[in-house]
């Protein structure tokens, strides 16, 4: 059968590129292996050529998918699911990586680019490192193959036609040649999730995936070193890559935080959500790995640990991929990906590299050179090593708690080994749980990076150490006292010490850079990155510990419930929100956005508002109303607001009936609505049959029901449902005195119950209102400044290491 209006060529091309990228990567790995075994240069040439062909094929996949999305070929499942005709063209990127297949391709893309760079720069490491790259790429390509050999499912292709997906195959419409023209639902896609229609979603995923991809380079070097039994010289070329990874993955994670803060309504930049955690943990481990490599470069110790953490970071990326894409987090995360049925394949991927990497490490453990002499207690390397251990344990704590759903799958009552009698759920208060561990860990890390700069490799001269650090401590004490006074930290011991440590780390790194390093660029990488990190800590501490929910009401429902954090604002009425007087002015409907204009005055009676915010609800068929915050930025604080409810969301009839409710009732059933009982007594059926044809022409269904009020008074109601041929009508029953209206909406075909819709009369002079949350975040700008500095510092370090390597 010929289908009309389909564009099959680009899809076939796309699938060809996927197969090519898979095949070329696989054979390239084998050819590199044969080259190592035989040292035959022609194998190397073949391997190189194949990897280049693989990279070209990946570019082809990217190009084809963009072409499909831009051409709006909705016969393709991926295009239909992730884009629509009305999608603004700048969001085509977001549509590209909204689905799992697209994000796998993004990941493939970065690996391919890094692989090609490595191919031409890794020199003696090329062959073993490229085996790792090619093998990883073969696995990743297989994730988008979408083939079904021997009843197995391998990958999910973004180039599959909608009529060929497993869900649709065999359905009646797939047998209609002109289905594309016949059904309106195929003429436009379902569109992009409105939460992702944000510029951060254009730049955050590619940055994050470059970060994920970058962890593969130190991993590949470490495996190559173990494979070649050349344990020492890999650190030198791997070190700039490790810092590159720290910088770019850190940037990706922080961009995710900025997006959450700007476009999501959980009220903050970090919520310890499983998806956030699973990209943070590999970053923490990579920071540890980079510092261990530094120790090795300078003092030739901690080599085993450098191997371990370099390997672990990439394995954790794989584990995170498994966590977020297998659907195992389903109940615990709001934004984990939907399960595409690739869990098994992801497990094989994770298991393969875990076994190979750790197997090789254990196998070669004895041969890895270890330093015989004891590190001095006052040496920089000793405390850097301790710092890396703290990072490792912090990462372990986060990943363990995030893995509770996995533990539940394994050991829960329905698990493989049912050790637990109750299903284990994530901690009730996740933020409190994580903070109870991570605040002390962060405190130790920040302290170490403050002191570290004054410690020397080998042995530290005590006199010089105290001379340098006493100045920093003194200055830090002054600033800490100032901040503690301003933001009232005196009664919180842990936070107060954290405050001091963070300020101290900033001052000491500044001092180190300006006075000991004489402000030279050569010293700036670590100082700038460390100042950035300490600023992030300081900003998070103050903005979180001292955040003020100014919309919080004073009314407590019960002792153990938190006070309600939402305020109700009636139109044109003013209400006190912290130091401000807020007035909800009006709702402006712009496109599919309901903008709620709220003015903030400094004093009651002011003519001019201090500022105006417009949090909005994005109305979409797909997601329902989605709140979008609006934030006023000052240099020293942010006022973050979002609308949680509004009277505009309540459906209302022309004559003022609202508070719509749906009730399903069988014969004899009773329901409660607005302090009235509704008793459904019987259903009367009246069908008009055409005498000649015997077909039903009209159908009238009448619900015989009673409404009983609190005084026991009964009212009879007879709402009817009328079908005249194709035309559907309702006769509603209104009880004006009680202010109630009922409609016989429909009959539930499964249960044969009737569906009744009920409204009640709204208060005539009820003004429109909104329910809103407003939070003041003090000094949150320190966090963003710190983020930028940390990333800049990491890249200066990359540059320095790269330059040192070449010198």
């Amino acid at each position, binding site marked *: 059968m010929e289908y009309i209006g389909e564009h099959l060529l680009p899809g076939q091309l796309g699938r060809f590129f996927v197969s090519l990228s898979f095949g070329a990567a696989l054979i390239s790995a084998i050819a590199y292996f044969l080259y190592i075994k035989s040292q035959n240069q022609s194998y190397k040439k073949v391997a190189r050529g194949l990897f280049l062909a693989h990279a070209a094929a990946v570019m082809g996949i990217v190009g084809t998918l963009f072409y499909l999305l831009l051409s709006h070929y909705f016969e393709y499942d991926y295009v239909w699911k992730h884009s629509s005709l009305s999608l603004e063209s700048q969001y085509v990127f977001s549509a590209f990586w909204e689905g799992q297949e697209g994000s796998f391709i993004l990941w493939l893309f970065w690996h391919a680019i890094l692989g090609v760079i490595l191919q031409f720069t890794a020199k003696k490491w090329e062959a073993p490192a490229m085996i790792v790259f090619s093998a990883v790429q073969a696995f990743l390509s297989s994730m988008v193959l979408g083939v079904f050999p021997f009843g197995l499912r391998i990958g999910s292709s973004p180039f599959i036609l909608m009529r060929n997906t497993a869900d649709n195959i065999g359905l009646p419409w797939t047998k209609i040649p002109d289905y594309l023209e016949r*059904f309106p639902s195929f003429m436009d896609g379902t569109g992009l999730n409105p939460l992702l229609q944000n510029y951060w979603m254009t730049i955050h995923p590619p940055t994050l995936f470059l970060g994920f991809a970058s962890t593969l380079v130190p991993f590949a070097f470490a495996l190559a070193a173990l494979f070649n039994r050349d344990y020492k010289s890999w650190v030198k070329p791997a070190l700039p890559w490790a810092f590159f990874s720290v910088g770019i993955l850190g940037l990706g994670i922080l961009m995710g935080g900025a997006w959450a803060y700007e476009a999501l309504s959980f009220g903050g930049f970090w919520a310890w959500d499983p998806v956030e955690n699973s990209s943070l943990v590999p970053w923490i481990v990579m920071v540890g790995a980079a510092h261990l490599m530094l120790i090795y470069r300078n003092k030739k110790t901690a080599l085993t640990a450098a191997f371990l953490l370099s390997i672990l970071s990439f394995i954790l990326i794989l584990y995170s991929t498994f966590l977020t894409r297998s659907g195992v987090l389903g109940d615990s995360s709001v934004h984990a990906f939907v399960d595409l049925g690739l869990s098994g394949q992801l497990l094989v991927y994770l298991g393969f590299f875990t076994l190979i990497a750790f197997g090789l490490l254990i196998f070669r453990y004895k041969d890895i050179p270890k330093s015989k002499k004891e590190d001095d207690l006052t040496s920089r390397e000793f405390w850097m090593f301790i710092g890396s251990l703290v990072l490792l344990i912090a990462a372990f704590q986060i990943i363990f708690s995030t893995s509770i759903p996995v533990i539940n799958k394994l050991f829960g009552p329905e698990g493989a080994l049912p050790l637990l009698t109750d299903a284990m759920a994530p901690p009730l208060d996740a933020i409190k749980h994580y903070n109870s561990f991570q605040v002390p860990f962060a405190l130790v890390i920040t302290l170490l990076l403050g002191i570290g700069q004054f410690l020397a490799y080998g042995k530290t001269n005590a006199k010089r150490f105290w001379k340098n650090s006493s100045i920093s401590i003194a200055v830090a004490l002054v600033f800490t006292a100032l901040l503690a006074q301003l933001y009232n930290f005196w009664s919180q011991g842990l936070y107060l010490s954290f405050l001091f440590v963070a300020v101290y780390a900033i001052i000491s790194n500044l001092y180190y850079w300006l006075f000991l390093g004489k402000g030279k660029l050569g010293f700036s990488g670590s100082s700038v990155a460390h100042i950035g990190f300490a600023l992030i800590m300081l900003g998070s501490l103050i903005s979180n510990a001292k955040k003020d929910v100014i919309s919080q009401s004073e009314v407590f429902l019960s002792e153990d419930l938190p006070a*309600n954090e939402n305020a109700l604002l009636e139109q044109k009425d003013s209400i006190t929100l912290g130091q401000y007087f807020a007035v909800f002015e009006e709702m402006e409907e712009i496109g599919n956005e309901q903008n709620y204009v709220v003015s903030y005055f400094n004093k009651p009676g002011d003519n001019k508002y201090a500022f105006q915010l417009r949090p909005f609800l994005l109305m979409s068929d797909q997601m329902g109303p989605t709140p979008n915050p609006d934030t006023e930025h000052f240099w020293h604080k942010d006022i973050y607001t979002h609308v949680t409810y509004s*009277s505009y969301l309540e459906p209302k009839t022309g004559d003022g009936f609202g508070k719509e409710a749906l009730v399903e009732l069988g014969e004899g059933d009773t329901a409660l609505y607005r302090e009235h009982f509704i008793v459904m007594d019987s259903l009367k059926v009246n069908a008009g049959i055409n005498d000649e044809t015997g077909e039903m022409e009209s159908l009238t269904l009448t619900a015989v029901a009673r409404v009983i009020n609190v005084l026991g008074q009964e009212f009879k109601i007879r709402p009817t449902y009328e079908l005249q041929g194709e035309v559907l009508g309702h006769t509603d029953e209104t009880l004006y005195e009680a202010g109630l209206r009922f409609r016989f909406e429909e009959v539930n075909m499964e249960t044969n119950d009737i569906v009744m819709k009920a409204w009640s009369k709204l208060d005539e002079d009820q003004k429109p209102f909104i329910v809103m949350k407003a939070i003041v975040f003090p000094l949150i700008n320190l966090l963003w400044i710190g983020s930028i500095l940390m990333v800049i510092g990491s890249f200066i370090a990359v540059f320095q290491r790269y330059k040192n390597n070449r010198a």
Partner: protein
Amino acid sequence: MKRTHIAIIVFIALAIGAIMVTINDASTYVGFNRASENPGTKYTVIGYLDKDAPMDYNARANRFNFTAIDKEGNKQKVFYNQPKPQDFERSEEITMKGFATDSAFVASEILMKCPSKYNEQNEVAGYDTY
């Protein structure tokens, strides 16, 4: 024994400590019956919205009540002193964190799972009225 070895042992001990605390902090998925047996103890209950029962949100008092049915099929009135979550009617599954009282389950946090567009595609797929 080297100092670094001692440090590693200390950190392994810390890791075991972290596991113990996490297991302690973790809550359990239960049904409404179990929650009612220990009123006041916080639990996580997964259920879905009972669409036959009334649902009421009083914006002025900021009180939201509805009835949920847990996985064992038990109905329970739920009380939530937060604004009604957006699109609550369309939720397929609700995760409620809170505790039982003698009259209702008091939820302090609610997560919902809504039919995603993936499911909506199935609706189109079921477009076989033709």
